[in-house]
């Protein structure tokens, strides 16, 4: 029977190979495999990195980031701010066209902003846009945003794909977010088969004003196919067979791949990703800062990430990661609870826990990126000092809900979670820890005041000091215990014939420069 199956499959394989060859002869697309699918093509309806990365290819943004993560002009050739910091005026480049051929101008920007603030159906990231009260078309190439209060994080936000500019021809278009997504980015949407793949075609009219790519025109390759391959080993196999050009490899195989030179490994820098412990602070045991500190002292992040990610990831000392404004490892290391199991045991003993009475807590972790493995290591580390943590794996969306639910619940056993956030600005701390707090977690009036200050200070040095003051509170009280950066979807294995692939800050892969050498 085996023999017969063999012959059959070989025949089938031969038949299919013929089919594939003829398809390949027509055009060579870049094939990029990821572990999951996007939620939507509508940038106002999701927050996942997978979605963001895709939007960044289809849509363009007013501003862009340089390689250090600083905002630079893009579609907006320049911008001005009034002295009060409440009016931002952007001047657009002339001649930008949308995928449907219509010009991209101030009305499209206004359309996008208004849509994000639509009362009936606002953007899920409305809060991050800041206190915008209106968007005004001054002339076809000039648009003015008016804010209620100053908001310094608006500029970096407009460099991020959360602020993707949607062409107003999307208005009323059938199936926006599903079958239609008209932008002005380097790639045009051809089709999206849910759960399977997104097919993009080169936007021939594209001009790169500020994005991190050497190529100032349209991408070199004809098309880009983003496929879904959940299993890391399967992605690797597909990379090896050439079915896929670029994909996240299994972490444990990275060293081997590097050594063999079989595939190139690209590690994204300045991802802005921050992985940290946070706690349900409104009830025992984590309402006592000593319990939180004990967790901090029990955690050996360096050892853990070394075990799971090798040298691919770095321990992070600050609540915002490297490449984000205010980050300073030395400053943070002073404040944070460092690995010291003895100290952890002592703190636990103070609280009345001991070998016979472990501190019990749930440990919420979201799926993917080998975090379940990492969590297992942390679980073992905590067990060493007498903390019994039950890992609960869940989707990130679920975890967000759970964390908030835990914070709003007064009863039950302890809860801590391995939270992750990626942001281009320390303003994220405002979202997280300013009352009421994204998860209804730790807040105090003092911290609120300190966070408010970080939003309005326009002088970089003053703002830096204010930000680091916030770090101090968060770290010393064990509210936000940073673990490592980068944290997810930042390692890419690339087939050797693929040239020019790189990743912009905040994990935006750039395909504009990609060329695939003919075999």
């Amino acid at each position, binding site marked *: 029977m085996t023999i017969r199956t063999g012959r059959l499959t070989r025949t089938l394989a031969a038949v299919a190979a013929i089919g594939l060859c003829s398809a390949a002869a027509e055009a060579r697309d870049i094939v990029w495999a990821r572990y999951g699918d996007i939620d939507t093509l509508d940038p106002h309806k999701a927050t996942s990195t997978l979605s963001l990365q895709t939007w960044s290819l289809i849509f363009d943004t007013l501003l862009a980031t340089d390689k250090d993560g600083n905002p630079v002009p893009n579609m907006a050739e320049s911008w001005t701010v009034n002295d009060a910091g409440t009016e931002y005026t952007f001047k657009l480049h002339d001649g930008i066209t949308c995928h449907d051929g219509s010009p991209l101008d101030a009305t499209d920007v206004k359309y996008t902003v208004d849509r994000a603030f639509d009362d009936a159906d606002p953007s899920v990231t409305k809060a991050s846009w800041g206190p915008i009260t209106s968007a005004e078309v001054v002339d076809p190439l000039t648009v003015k945003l008016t804010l209620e209060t100053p908001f310094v994080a608006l500029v970096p936000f407009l460099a991020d794909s959360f602020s993707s500019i949607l062409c107003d021809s999307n208005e009323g278009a059938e199936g926006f977010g599903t079958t239609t997504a008209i932008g002005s980015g380097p790639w045009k949407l051809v089709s999206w088969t849910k759960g399977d793949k997104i097919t993009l075609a080169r936007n021939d009219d594209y001009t790169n004003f500020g994005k991190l790519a050497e190529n100032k025109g349209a991408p070199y390759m004809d098309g880009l196919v983003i496929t879904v391959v959940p299993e890391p080993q399967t992605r690797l196999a597909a990379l090896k067979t050439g079915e896929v050009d670029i994909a996240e490899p299994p972490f*444990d*195989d990275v060293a081997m791949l590097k050594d063999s030179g079989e595939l190139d490994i690209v590690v994204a820098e300045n991802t802005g990703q921050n992985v940290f412990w946070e706690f349900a602070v409104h009830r025992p045991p984590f309402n006592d800062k000593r319990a939180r500190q004990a967790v901090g002292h029990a955690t050996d992040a360096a050892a853990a990430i070394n075990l799971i990610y090798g040298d691919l990831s770095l321990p992070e000392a600050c609540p915002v990661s490297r490449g984000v404004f205010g980050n300073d490892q030395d400053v943070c290391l002073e404040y944070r609870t460092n690995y010291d199991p003895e100290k952890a045991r002592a703190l636990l003993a103070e609280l009345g826990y001991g070998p016979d009475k472990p501190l019990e807590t749930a440990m919420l972790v979201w799926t993917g990126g080998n975090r379940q493995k990492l969590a297992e290591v942390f679980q*073992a580390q905590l067990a060493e000092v007498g903390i019994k943590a039950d*890992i609960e794996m869940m989707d990130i969306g679920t975890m967000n809900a759970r964390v908030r639910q835990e914070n709003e619940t007064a009863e039950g056993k302890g809860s801590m979670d391995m939270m992750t956030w990626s942001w281009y600005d320390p303003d994220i701390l405002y979202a997280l820890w300013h009352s009421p707090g994204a998860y209804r977690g730790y807040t105090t009036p003092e911290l609120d005041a300190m966070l408010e200050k970080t939003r309005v200070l326009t002088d970089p040095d003053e703002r830096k000091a204010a930000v680091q003051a916030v770090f101090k509170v968060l770290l010393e009280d064990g509210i936000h215990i940073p673990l490592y950066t980068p944290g997810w979807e930042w390692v890419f294995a690339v087939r050797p014939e693929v040239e020019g692939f790189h990743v912009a800050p905040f994990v935006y892969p750039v395909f504009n420069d990609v060329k695939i050498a003919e075999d």
Partner: protein
Amino acid sequence: MAELSGAVPDYDHEIVPPGRRAHFWRRVAFTPNGAFGLAVVIVLIASAGLADLITPYSPIKMGVGPRFLPPNGAYLLGTDEFGRDLFTRIVYGSRLTLMIGAIAVGISLTVGILVGLIAAYRGGWTETILMRGTDVLFSFTETLIALACVAVLGPSLKNAMIAVGIAGIPFYARTCYSAALVERSKPYFEATIAAGAGPLRLLFLHLLPNVLPTMIVVATLGLSAAILAAAGLSFLGLGAQPPDPEWGAMLSGARDYFNRAPYLMVIPGLAIAVTVLGFNLLGDAIRTALDPREGSE
């Protein structure tokens, strides 16, 4: 999740009379299938019971050895990605496996027998409602019911056991029902009614003991299905959570290393397969011993 339930409940309700029990077990143990099944089950129970004695390390402590060490003298089955001893984890895993099987089958069996017995005994509307309901659930297949239960309850080992238990109810209820229906139509049952016996006596002294042999066969086969189903859920991440050494979860975790350490995937898979095979063969042998039509004797 393989459904053994694909086999129709068509057991012959030939009963092993009390006096022949010893002979019966000899018949089970002396067939090659039965002997293998029995051996697997005994080894499983022994390893679950004696796990603390026969394992050299802790099943959850990391770094008791180097990582990814292939099977060798010191670590019989090698070590995993955290430097834990795989042999120890497999042995402790047998404990979980037995527990999962026992609890899940316990739930299915108890509820299934009650539903089946009551439906067969009461007849009329009770029967229609219970058995049509069972049919509806049955057409959903165990996998879907288990999945729906986990969707509601959330992923955890406990919930997976409950889910698999609930998912099995329709099959057990159906089997019990058809067995009870056969018994119910036998003259001895009518004679007992005619003797004036009440419902409890009829249900629990006459009906239950007579369907029990059938249900034991079903439960033995069902154990394997339950173990497989729970391992499947754990494999999908919907069952056991770390650091539990549950075989399905171990297998799932080992997927990331199949280039580097294929034994991490092969061994838990074999453990599941052999265990399930053991229960299947044992169940089959018991059924053959009960059903004179099956064997060549």
